[in-house]
């Protein structure tokens, strides 16, 4: 109670003083009433002011009171210079906001532990191999038999959990016409138990739900899905839905904070592993799941890893027997290594793809923050100079050094906390904005971004750190004032200038680094987005269409015909999936017997597709309505180069093999056409692969046409904005055949763009940081030059009076600072070369040592420096010696 009342009294300081005064006064009055002489009573009582101060110090927290007084004084100082302070607070707020935002993203994606029991015991299995061009590639998928074998091998030491990749699926709670989408994941039945999770409603899956293939049609839904889809209806338990041909029953709701183990995706529906189709479950070659390892208490990771490695080698040996690989393939096959990596915050592709970009952006934001800090430090130093007399006076009447440090620091704290408040607002809005830019709009990254103690703690630590960074040096300097010399009329300003110059050099170095990195990212994005695709994306709309039950090909053709009649439609074709959408299908090619080591991509397309996509036909013909798979194929130039030594392959034959093994199923094709290369994969960094286009209609072994449950209608519209037709086309598909449902409509331009989303995000944000860094550094340079001209105007006036030329004055004013800028730029360059080691993997066709990459930041900084120096230099040259020297 006592400390609390002392703290609250700080904020009622005036009332407290009045009360003490009144009490002391009443004492004297009482004495007079008792007949004592007024003067004697006062004398006996002593100095009321001194007594009041003594009592005040007892009744309130003196340290807090002095802080309060300093804060008020500091705030008054800030308010006195509205424009400068507002600029300082805004620049700082932007930088603090950017840093906090970056931290929120990094924390949410990479650092925050999963809300499960002992997340630090969680690991993920991944595999590493030397891929094409000698680059190390890693992947983290296993097949189910492989998982089972690993689980048995370490069951004493660890619990192994299989989780499939979270996937968007179509399902329905009613009729086929009411299909909706949800994020779906197959998980080991024991997962919820191993994670120590309790259901929010109903029950969770158990190991008993994961025993017999196809026998456990039970689903657990996420809390988020329960809320958004069912409005938290408790009657959701027992509801059924259909996915594919299976009917599932909802048995429970997962706890609120658990959204799956794939950070960056929130799973809506969890079903047991055993519900995956039996063929996939049994196949040792179908890699479709992640293996999570939860160590048992007291077990170290290393022995478990060793056992898994041994087990993996056995498994590989078994597998090699069935694959019938050639010796070269075998050698590569056995080089594959099993890794065990900690996964306390889950495991996802988003983490792998965005680790470096996010950390890089965080560092850029931190550099901008440092630049802003240097600016404010320089501002404070200049102000401390203006206040040297005030400080000297304070020292003369007995203020201690620490008290002065506190005085100046409180001013910094006022700046920092205002900036932090604004920055917090900025971070609150900007982090979700960036998450929304990570994935294409139809499949957004879903990241849990809470504003909890971790984020607040980071913000607070950052604010205090920033305050000390820009406030401590000026505060120490201000407090070291020597009253005798300051009151006499000025210390040597030289020492102060040294510190300011050092800060300018640091600023330039950071600014150069930010601009250099931004330049690399912008150039990378430019090169990638200008990669030729080989087809025309203009006015193309892709209608990704599904049917609940597979439909005969003739129905698909009917829908395509129906769409051709819609006004505004120029051309319609059918394909398996849109180009560059990330889906792919590949297999080996055999020309004379042995399967090739290099794989070819395959894509099913209808007649008219190559014309719709405007892929030039070099030789041969397009498909005709009667062509089927297997049978006819159209190949690209890369295919001809790879498998026919670049000769025209039209009319020749090849075999397609489903896998790399020699006894895989073979299908025979005759090449009917040769087309130019067109990009089908989503990785813009890789060259266009050999590709064979095969007919959309397939026949089975008996020669009957196979039914189809998914495909994409590719529509070229006549209007410039294809999306204007989107809703009409969606309706027309349903009108043509009610079983057909368009699950996703995307323009081809959007798909192409989504393949460089990460690079675009990096380039844009880095460019933004670069612009801010340049602006701040420019303003800082201007401030310091301006201050130094002001400080030296007497000296300059004397020089001019003695006949110095304008050029000479200019050199004198700017020489020091420009040498600092150059030194800073050199340091920045060195830092830039070091940083390339970390960001190298994010670059494409950009060499950091390219003179152009160095010239851009160098020239930009030079231009900014010249621009910033212009006004102070003009002022220096225009100094009228008569006026200045008279004033002195």
């Amino acid at each position, binding site marked *: 109670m006592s400390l609390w009342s002392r703290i609250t009294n700080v904020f009622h300081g005036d009332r407290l003083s009045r009360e003490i005064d*009144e*009490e*002391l006064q009443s*004492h004297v009055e*009482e*004495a007079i009433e008792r007949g004592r002489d007024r003067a004697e009573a006062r004398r006996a009582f*002593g100095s009321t002011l001194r007594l009041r101060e003594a009592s005040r110090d007892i*009744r309130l927290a003196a340290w807090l009171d002095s802080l309060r007084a300093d804060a008020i004084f500091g705030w008054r100082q800030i308010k006195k210079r509205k424009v400068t302070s507002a600029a300082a607070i805004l620049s700082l707020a932007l930088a603090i906001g950017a840093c906090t935002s970056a931290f929120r993203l990094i924390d949410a994606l990479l650092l925050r532990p999963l809300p499960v029991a002992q997340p630090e015991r969680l690991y993920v299995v991944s595999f590493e191999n030397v891929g094409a061009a000698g680059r190390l590639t890693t992947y983290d998928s296993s097949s189910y038999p492989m998982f089972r074998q690993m689980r048995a091998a370490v069951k004493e030491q660890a619990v192994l959990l299989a989780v499939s990749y979270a996937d968007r699926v179509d399902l329905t709670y009613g009729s086929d016409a009411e299909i909706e989408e949800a994020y779906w994941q197959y998980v080991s039945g024991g997962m919820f138990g191993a994670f120590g999770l309790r259901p929010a409603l109903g029950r969770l899956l158990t190991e008993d739900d994961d025993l017999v293939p196809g026998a456990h049609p039970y689903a657990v839904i996420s809390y988020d899905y329960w809320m958004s889809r069912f409005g938290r209806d408790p009657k959701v338990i027992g509801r059924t839905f259909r996915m594919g041909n299976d009917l599932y029953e909802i048995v429970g709701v997962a706890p609120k904070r658990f959204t799956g183990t794939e950070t960056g995706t929130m799973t809506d529906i969890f079903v047991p592993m055993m519900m995956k189709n039996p063929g996939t479950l049994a196949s040792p070659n179908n890699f479709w799941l992640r293996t999570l390892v939860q160590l048992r208490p007291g077990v170290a990771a290393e022995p478990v890893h060793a056992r898994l490695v041994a087990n993996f080698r056995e498994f590989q040996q078994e597998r090699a027997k069935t694959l019938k690989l050639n010796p070269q393939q075998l050698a590569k096959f056995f080089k594959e290594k099993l890794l065990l990596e900690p996964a306390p915050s889950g495991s996802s592709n988003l983490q792998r793809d965005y680790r470096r970009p996010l950390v890089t952006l965080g560092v850029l934001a931190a550099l901008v923050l440092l630049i802003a800090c240097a600016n404010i430090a320089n501002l404070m130093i200049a102000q401390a100079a203006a206040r040297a007399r005030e400080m000297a006076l304070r020292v003369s009447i007995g203020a201690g050094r620490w008290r002065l440090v506190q005085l100046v620091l409180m001013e910094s704290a006022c700046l920092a906390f205002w900036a932090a408040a604004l920055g917090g607002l900025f971070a609150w809005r900007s982090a979700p904005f960036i998450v929304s830019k990570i994935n294409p709009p139809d499949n957004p990254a879903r990241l849990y971004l809470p504003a909890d103690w971790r984020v607040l703690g980071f913000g607070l630590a950052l604010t205090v750190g920033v305050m000390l960074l820009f406030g401590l040096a000026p505060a120490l300097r201000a407090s070291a004032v020597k009253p005798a010399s300051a009151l006499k009329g000025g210390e040597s300003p030289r020492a102060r200038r040294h510190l300011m110059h050092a800060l300018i050099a640091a600023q330039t170095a950071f600014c150069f680094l930010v601009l250099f990195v931004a330049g690399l990212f912008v150039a990378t994005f430019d090169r990638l987005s200008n990669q030729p695709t080989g087809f025309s994306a203009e006015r193309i709309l892709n209608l990704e269409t599904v049917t609940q039950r597979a439909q005969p090909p003739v129905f698909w053709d009917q829908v395509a015909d129906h769409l051709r009649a819609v006004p505004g439609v120029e051309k319609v074709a059918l394909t398996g999936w849109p180009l560059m959408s990330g889906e792919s299908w590949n297999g080996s090619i055999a020309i004379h017997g042995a399967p090739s080591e290099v794989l070819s991509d395959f894509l099913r397309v209808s007649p008219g597709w190559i014309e719709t996509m405007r892929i030039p036909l070099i030789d041969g013909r397009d498909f005709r309505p009667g062509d089927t798979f297997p049978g006819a194929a159209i190949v690209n130039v890369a295919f001809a180069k790879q498998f026919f030594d670049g000769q025209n392959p039209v009319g020749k034959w090849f075999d397609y093999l489903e896998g790399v093994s020699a006894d895989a199923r073979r299908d025979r094709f005759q090449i009917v056409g040769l087309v130019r290369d067109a990009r089908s994969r989503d990785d813009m960094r890789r060259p266009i692969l050999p590709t064979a286009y095969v007919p959309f209609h397939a026949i089975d072994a008996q020669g009957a046409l196979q039914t189809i449950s998914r495909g994409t209608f590719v529509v070229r519209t006549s209007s410039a904005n294809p999306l204007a037709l989107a809703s009409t086309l969606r309706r027309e598909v349903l009108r043509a055949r009610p079983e057909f449902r368009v699950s996703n409509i995307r323009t081809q331009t959007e798909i192409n763009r989504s393949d460089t989303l990460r690079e675009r995000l990096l380039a844009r944000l880095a460019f933004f940081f670069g612009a801010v860094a340049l602006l701040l550094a420019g303003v800082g340079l201007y401030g310091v030059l301006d201050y130094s001209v002001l400080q030296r105007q007497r000296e300059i006036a004397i020089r001019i009076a003695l006949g110095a030329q304008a050029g000479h004055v200019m050199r004198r004013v700017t020489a020091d600072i420009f040498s600092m800028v150059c030194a800073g730029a050199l340091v920045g360059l060195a830092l830039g070369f070091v940083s390339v080691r970390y960001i190298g993997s994010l670059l494409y066709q950009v060499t950091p040592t390219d003179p152009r990459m160095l010239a851009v930041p160098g020239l930009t900084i030079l231009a900014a420096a010249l621009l910033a120096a212009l006004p102070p230099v003009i002022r220096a040259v225009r100094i009228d010696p008569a006026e200045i020297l008279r004033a002195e």
Partner: protein
Amino acid sequence: MHKPDSLQGSLDLLVLKILSRRPRLHGYAIMSAIRIVSGDVLRAEEGSLYPALHRMEEAGWIRAEWITKQNGRRARQYELTATGRKQLGAEESRWQEVTAAVNRVLRMA
């Protein structure tokens, strides 16, 4: 001659004791009481009484409230709290110990 020093260290004890006997006194009355009860031997320095009162108030030994006297002026009255009563007991026994010890020394010497 009694210097104000004579009260050193015992002012708290005296104030607490006075307040335990006669609750609701203002500063001047406490001072007078100390003087009168001690037979004019002990005198609290008038000024130093108030910081001491405020310190004890912050320590929670006494509590204060403003009252309006008949003549319309306000005065601040003090009374003992439960903590203060405990403190008084402790200070009293400490005082007894010290004086007893001093007495022993005087007798021995």
